[in-house]
């Protein structure tokens, strides 16, 4: 059933999968949210190592830059913008949690059965381990140019939209709080804007 040959790739796979599973289980079981984000960063780094193992070096470094860098920092910003004093005292519904655990385990059992019973044919040798980045670039700018440009539009729209959602409303800025862009809007300048003009003088 487990027809695994013990070579270097399997050893590296074992180490990386241990890192990933430990990080994911810690993410579920830890109490504080910041610790959860740190263990998720560990999961992302382990996945990047696994991508290197699979001869996908460019995707591995993109994974490190975007997931372990940007997404983790974004989540930490989300934690800092919302307060989490009541992180430990969350109510536990035993029935809900048990049902979710049973559902996840059943899905895993189904997937495991499907994976183990499927007869995968032997693959052809993989071309593209050398000069991985150049080949991906050629593929992106020839065959996949339209999805690539559509994705750039999606990314721009999503970031502008998220800034527009998370920005404070203008009437709140002009109030007593004195927000970030109070001086730009033409309303009464908040304390920070007055401080800036004093410093400029």
């Amino acid at each position, binding site marked *: 059933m487990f027809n695994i040959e013990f070579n270097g790739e399997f050893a590296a796979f074992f180490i990386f999968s241990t890192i990933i599973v430990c990080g994911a289980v810690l993410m*579920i079981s830890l109490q504080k949210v910041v610790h959860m984000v740190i263990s998720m960063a560990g999961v992302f780094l382990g996945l990047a190592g696994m991508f290197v193992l699979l001869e996908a070096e460019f995707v591995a470094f993109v994974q490190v830059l975007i997931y372990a860098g940007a997404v983790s920092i974004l989540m930490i910003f*989300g934690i800092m913008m919302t307060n989490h004093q009541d992180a430990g005292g969350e109510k536990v519904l035993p029935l809900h949690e048990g049902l979710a655990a049973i559902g*996840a385990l059943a899905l895993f059992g189904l997937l495991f059965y499907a994976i183990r019973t499927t007869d995968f044919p032997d693959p052809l040798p993989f071309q593209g381990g050398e000069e991985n980045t150049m080949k991906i670039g050629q593929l992106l700018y020839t065959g996949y140019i339209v999805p690539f440009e559509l994705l750039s539009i999606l990314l721009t729209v999503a970031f502008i939209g998220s800034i527009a959602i998370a920005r404070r409303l203008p009437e709140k800025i002009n109030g007593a709080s004195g927000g970030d862009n109070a001086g730009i809007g033409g309303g009464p300048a908040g304390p920070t804007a007055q401080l800036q003009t004093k410093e400029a003088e």
Partner: protein
Amino acid sequence: MLPSYLTMAAILFCIGLYGALVKRNAVVVLLSVELMLNAVNLNLIVFSKYGVAPSLTGQVFSLFTITVAAAEAAVGVAILIALFRAKGTVNVDEYDEMRR
């Protein structure tokens, strides 16, 4: 090696699913969704090396998935901040306007 990698991705997906269903904190739910997306990425890259017809297309598609996941995380955190300003909590049980 292919079934081992696929089992790894299945474990990751199921842990993410469990976290997204059970956790009360909205940031942790977003993190669990990222975990599930990462499992899909792993599957794409595994099949780009060990599939029947190996090619770089799987890696290109995983790059697309990573981009969409980054946009999703940004919009998710922005919506979370707006919801926190409106309701003063990050507990997903209290976001129940559609149910009342």
